[in-house]
């Protein structure tokens, strides 16, 4: 009888299996300096963004002297699942995520982002030029990048409207393809599109600019916050300081461009109000 030996393929399978078992039984514990970036709806994928996360982690490791690692999620469900699984010390989250899950995850603002150098954001509802002029008469589907958090989205969009509308006649849907949504809106395929300030500025360079009109503008909103998951400890404070110092650091210039922010500023005082508004259900539903 022919003697059989362990083939290389079998050895590889065993090795992979072995690693998986080890990985399952010994999950890596995230440290207080490790972070998650959760931006539901941002185009691209975590794999594409990972090199930028690694660069940010390396930069912060150098500046704080702590070992920092980071991950990126642009799908809401994955982001929600990652928080208890990864147990991050801090993160940068979308405004909707903060408004809806801030209390649940005990998010404490550490700093705020500065997209295109702005300290405040504004959302706009745009519709085709032949669409209604009043959002109260708009029906159908409205898409936008920051609309994944269903409870928080109308609260943010209609912030500052008095009296606060109890509901709206259209539906709000999150999308990872905001430009496509905009084009669809211009063509009348969907009712409208919600743009943040950065996207609204970019609209001017697109041919669709002349085919759309704004029918609602929100009150000023905070930008995506940097938060601690839980109360901010010394490690997170250190991170917050390192982030706010990035603007003045030439070494960080390229990294800030990749992170789509002009720098980081102090936490926005409006963030606490937002949580309160959500809690008091003072938002349209």
């Amino acid at each position: 009888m022919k003697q059989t030996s362990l083939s290389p393929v079998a050895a590889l399978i065993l090795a992979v299996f072995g690693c998986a078992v080890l990985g399952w039984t010994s999950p890596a514990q995230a440290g207080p300096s490790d972070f998650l970036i959760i931006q539901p709806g941002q185009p691209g994928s975590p794999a594409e963004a990972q090199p930028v996360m690694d660069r940010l982690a390396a930069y912060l490791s150098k500046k704080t002297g702590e070992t920092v690692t980071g991950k990126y999620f642009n799908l809401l469900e994955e982001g929600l699942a990652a928080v208890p699984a990864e147990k991050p010390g801090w993160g940068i989250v979308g405004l909707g995520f903060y408004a809806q899950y801030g209390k649940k995850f005990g998010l404490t603002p550490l700093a705020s982002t500065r997209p295109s150098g702005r300290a405040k954001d504004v959302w706009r509802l745009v519709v085709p030029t032949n669409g209604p002029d009043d959002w109260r008469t708009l029906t159908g589907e409205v898409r936008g990048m920051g609309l994944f958090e269903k409870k928080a989205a109308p609260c943010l969009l209609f912030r500052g409207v008095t009296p606060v509308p109890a509901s709206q006649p259209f539906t709000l849907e999150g999308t990872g393809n905001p430009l496509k949504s905009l084009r669809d809106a211009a063509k009348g395929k969907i009712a409208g599109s919600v743009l943040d300030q950065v996207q609204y500025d970019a609209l001017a360079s697109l041919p669709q600019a002349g085919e759309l009109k704004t029918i609602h503008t929100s009150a000023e909103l905070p930008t995506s916050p940097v938060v601690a998951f839980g109360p901010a400890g010394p490690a997170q404070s250190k991170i917050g300081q390192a982030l706010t110092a990035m603007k003045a650091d030439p070494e960080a210039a390229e990294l800030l461009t990749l992170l789509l922010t002009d720098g980081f500023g102090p936490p926005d005082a409006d963030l606490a109000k937002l949580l309160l508004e959500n809690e008091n259900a003072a938002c349209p539903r």
Partner: protein
Amino acid sequence: MSLGRKIQEAALEWVWRVVSRYPWQIIVAGAVLAVVCATASSLFLRLNADQDALVSKDLPYQKRYLEHVENFGDQEYLYVVIRTRGSEEGKKKAAAFSDVVAARLQGHPDLIQAVYHRMRPRDMGPGALLFASLDEARTLASSLTFAGPLINGYLAEPSLARLFATAGDALSGRDATSASSAANADPALFGAALGGLDALLARMQARLASASPASPPEPGFGLDDLGAQHFFTANGQLLVMRILPAKDFGTMDVVGKPLELVRQAMAEARVAVGGVEAGLTGRPVLQADEMSTTDRDMTLAGALAAVLMILLFVFVLRDWLRPLLIMASLAMAEAWTFGFALITLGELNLLSIVFALVMAGLGVGYGIHVVLRHAYATRQGLNSEAAVREAVLTQGTGVFLNAGTTMSAFLAVLGSDFVGLAHLGLVAGAGILFCLLAQLFVLPALLLVLGRRGHLSPARADLTSLPWLEGVTDHSKAVLFVLILSAVGLLPWFLKVGFNYNVLELQAKGLESVAYERALVEESDESTWYAIAAAQDLDEVRALKERFAAQPGVGKIESILDFLPPDQAAKAALYRQAEILLAPVPDPERVPAQVDGLALAASLDHLSEGLESLEEKLFAAGAKEELARTEQVLATLASLSASLKADPSLAVRLSGLQLGLGQELVSLLDWFKDSLGTETVTPDSLPPALKDIYMGKDGRFQIKISPTGDVWDFDNLKAFVESLRAVDPSVSGVPVGFLESAQLMHRTFLSAGLWTLVLVSLLFIGYSRSLEYLALALLPLGFGLVWLMEYMGLTGLHFNLANFFAIPMLIGVGVDGGVHLLARRQELGSAHGIFLTSSPMAVALSVATTVIGFCGLLAAHHRGLASLGAVMVIGSVTCMVGCLLILPAAMKLSSALRFKRGLR
């Protein structure tokens, strides 16, 4: 009568005998010799405008420099300096401008030997990729894990369709790694890629629209230029192009023709790339501009001098013929001097060529004395022949002594290591001798011949003397008191006169080359002046570089080490792994000519999908500019795709484009693969263009050291050279050469001044056997120079490397008046009544010709020439005041004192 006087009288009698017996023979011989000399000189006398030839090759610093130039080649560049204003847009424009200039200069190897304005990867040789940082090498190597298969896919079928499909794959994010790499690409790289794609699509559109597309393969995709780095200064404010011109030392401006070509190329580039501020500088440019400015200034000054001189002569003598005879004699002397220079030296250099100016300034004076005495004698009633005899016998001594003095001043520099000055001394000294001969033989012969024929009218009585000065100088004590008091009172300003070595400050104001030289000094770490050192091996290069860098005043240091990248082994290991991922590159001839229209349309659609996915990211990021450009590209892609789908047979029109682009791309990938396989970069493996700059013929390595400060300032220059010599005493280069040469020139002038004083003293003592004579003869010169320097101190004018040349000429001017007035005193037996004779007027007229000759320079644009004009004009006037006031007053006082002693 002393023996000296007897010999002098006998000699002058002999001159007169020769002149009176053979006037025609003298004139004809002189003229024939002049024609022969002028012809031979124009044919065979060479101009050597090489500045390096101005000092002795045996001087240690010059020897080292010449050996260095021989070993490493001529590296004296023209610098095109282009301003960027520090913006990215400015940099782009500057780079485009330099590319246009470089392109225009191609195809003129006879005028332009090399142009350095950018470095393309291929220019770095096969080891180009080893110049990446270790991080970049890692990124490149890891990128090939996803890009390798894409590249291999294209290489398997190097068609347009495959190229666009590959680009679409890279952008659409089918592969996580590829998507990640594309998403995180450098924004600048993204912009360039988008621009390249846009240009290619536009070209495709043009081909599809054209009924007769270019015949295959279509050239000019410029892929070799990808990744080219232009030579910006460290602060990014300037782009500096270095251009090595062909030199012609047979012309004054040396680089005139190359310069014209470069300026023309820059003018064309200004039209092609608007809104660019650029200028040309560098040592050869400054030299050429200096030549051009001085030439223009001298021409204007010469024309002005000629007009004023004619007016002066006509006014004083009411005669045009006598001045013409002086000029004819001077012209002969000048021609003989050219012949002398041909026989003795065979060439003229940048300094010795000014001998003609020196002779014109001084030689006219000798003739004036002869002619004015001739005019005076005819007014006294003598016939022309007797008047010529009197002119020769009475003026000969003065002319001879004056010529002897001036010759001493020039011959004193003979044997100097400053070869340029030594040659000037020899030629100008000989020229003065020829002037003497011409004015003592040819001029009297001409006066004799024309006088015998009645062509010379008697001079006007009232203008050959200055009787009003007789009364003034009769108050000798008062005159001397006032003048001496003025000289003593102004002495503090005398002490303020310094020496300014800054040759940049001699140049005309507003000169482009000066402005851009200043821009380089003040706005960048570059310098057109750099020192050079040589090292035997790389270890010595490293050690020297480190030590030079530690010295104060040292800026940029360039050496071959800049082209030997660090961490070569680690990078080569990374690249070895990456190289395996690339399939063998096919022969460029295997690029297919046939284009499948439908397949190409499909690949364009695929690319559009990839770009749309990218657009989402740009939109979310608010990248307006990139978004707009991507939109434009998408529109072109859609249009192309629609055309090809409508009529796939149109694709045949893209055949040449596919071949041209494919062949360039395949060739580039072939080089890329080779580069990945290159293990090391060594000095020997560098491309010739780099090796030629940094490696000598003898295998030694060159180190270029630029200063941080303004080394046109002499103190900075001295400090810079001293700090370099503290590291390497054999350091060489333009800063060292200039420092040494300027100091040598200064020393040579000072020692020549002392030697002149000794020689003149010996000459005068030998002639007169009288210290009083010596003192009186030098009195006008002494006071003239003191007043001149007091004036300079008052007005802030300093000596410099241009106006220092005035000193030997002023010695001639100052002594000239003295010896003529002393000769007249001797003739009269007393100084009383001297202003009733023609001598003071001759002195005044002689000085006036010098003043006129140089006053045109006062308005010169070249500040060096203007300062030379100022020193000559002021110095001549002060010497004249010395001659016409101090000397007569002193002579009269001396006579009075002697008379009193005689009475006692």
